[in-house]
């Protein structure tokens, strides 16, 4: 039985059924994305997991995609909303390409477009439940920015989403510097991803690194990080704990 709750929506009053179309909580989610600027461009890393609540359900989801010739988009949060965003951007880039006039949308333009989209959806109380990382290189200029699901947006030399903000960013703040080589950049990202793998419950050990430079995009094959579990404290975990025997 439906009853009307008036919701002002620009089109007048909607009833409770239309209300159920709004995003209320996420279902299939991706966890952190970490990205840094390095000497030649941008490096972005994420794992390939899609969690369904606390179940690590999908293990082959690419959460970093190329946008046009110049940009990389990584997302955490609701995977279906990420796919929706990819559709919006696909249309945007298609129309941009059709002009064929020597002008193209660079990472800054895409980032701002996404900020507008995310903020507008937030204002309608129907957010795209994602935190997005947008990085790219155009005309030698490196760009790296982030947009959250409520439309907060900024640029920085290194960004991360979700748990990455708490676990990876402190590492990056200490160890990131201008003009990292590719090898150092990857090592730094691996260090962050390893910490996330140990500590983030929704992380899986299958990560994918993508690189964007002036020449273009390279997406590397997924691989796993080596982990170490032979700490002596793990052999007898309850030793010394309050109330244990």
């Amino acid at each position, binding site marked *: 039985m439906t009853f009307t709750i008036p919701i002002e929506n620009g089109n007048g009053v909607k009833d409770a059924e239309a209300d159920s179309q709004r995003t209320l909580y996420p279902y299939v989610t991706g966890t952190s994305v970490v990205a840094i600027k390095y000497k030649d461009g941008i490096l972005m890393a994420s794992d390939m997991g899609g969690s369904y609540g606390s179940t690590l359900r999908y293990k082959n989801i690419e959460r970093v995609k190329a946008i046009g010739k110049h940009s990389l988009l990584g997302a955490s949060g609701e995977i279906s909303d990420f796919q929706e965003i990819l559709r919006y951007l696909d249309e945007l880039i298609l129309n941009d390409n059709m*002009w064929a*006039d*020597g*002008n*193209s*949308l*660079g990472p*800054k*333009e895409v980032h*701002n*477009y996404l900020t*507008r989209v995310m903020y507008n959806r937030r204002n309608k109380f129907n957010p795209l439940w994602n935190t997005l990382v947008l990085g790219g290189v155009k005309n030698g200029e490196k760009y790296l920015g982030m947009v959250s699901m409520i439309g907060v947006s900024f640029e920085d030399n290194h960004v991360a989403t979700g748990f990455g903000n708490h676990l990876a960013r402190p590492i990056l703040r200490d160890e990131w510097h201008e003009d990292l080589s590719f090898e150092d950049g990857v090592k730094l990202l691996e260090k962050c991803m390893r910490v996330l793998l140990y500590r983030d419950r929704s992380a899986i050990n299958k990560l994918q690194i993508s690189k964007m430079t002036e020449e273009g995009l390279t997406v590397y094959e997924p691989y796993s990080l080596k982990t170490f579990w032979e700490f002596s404290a793990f052999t007898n975990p309850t030793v010394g704990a309050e109330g244990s025997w």
Partner: protein
Amino acid sequence: MFRNQYDTDVTTWSPTGRLFQVEYAMEAVKQGSAAIGLRSRSHVVLACVNKAQSELSSHQRKIFKVDDHIGVAIAGLTADGRVLSRYMRSESINHSFTYESPLPVGRLVVRLADKAQVCTQRSWKRPYGVGLLVGGLDESGAHLYYNCPSGNYFEYQAFAIGSRSQAAKTYLERRFESFKESSREELIKDAILAIRETLQGETLKSSLCTVSVLGVDEPFHFLDQESIQKVIDTFEKVPEEEEDAGEGEAEPEAAAGTAEQGGSGDQDVAPMEM
């Protein structure tokens, strides 16, 4: 062009495949006072003649800033020009807001042309009676376009529209090949010289013309009277006070030797056109 039975509304074709109302709209552009545009690789200069209704009134504005990187000069029905300038400003600022990046001028010009085309295909509308010289920047540098009431647009190295623009065009045709590599100062000088051609004998004073510049590192702005006068002084040997026609000045071979003196031929210009 004589009146005929196919020119009553814009949605009637003539048997020879013409839309007379659109062509009449382009006539309106020819009646307006001259506007000139030229570009180099990195700069665009727009200049126009300041014509006032009478001695008592001020002159109408014919050059508008659309954005830091786009300007437009109009000829024809200035009211239509004003409305289109407002549209251009709106498009430009909306793009800047969404993408934090300037709208490439080539894309703006297409939107303008599409807007003009609509008016050539609706029985309840009329074409815009204004020609627009749009100068602006995009990733590949400086560009100059001409938008006409028909909905067509063309890219130019240099162009002139409005009354007595043929004189200016002749001057520009002689010199346009060098414009691409011109410096900013040379470009401005050429623009003012082209304006002088349209005056045909009237003394060139800085109060008679408006000049605007924009460039890759230079946002759109107007030149002040002093700067314009300085440029004029470099080629006007003797500043004359009376209207002595053809006193053997720097470049005398302006074509259109028809003896129309300065102000007299404008009596058949409708008051709404400038």
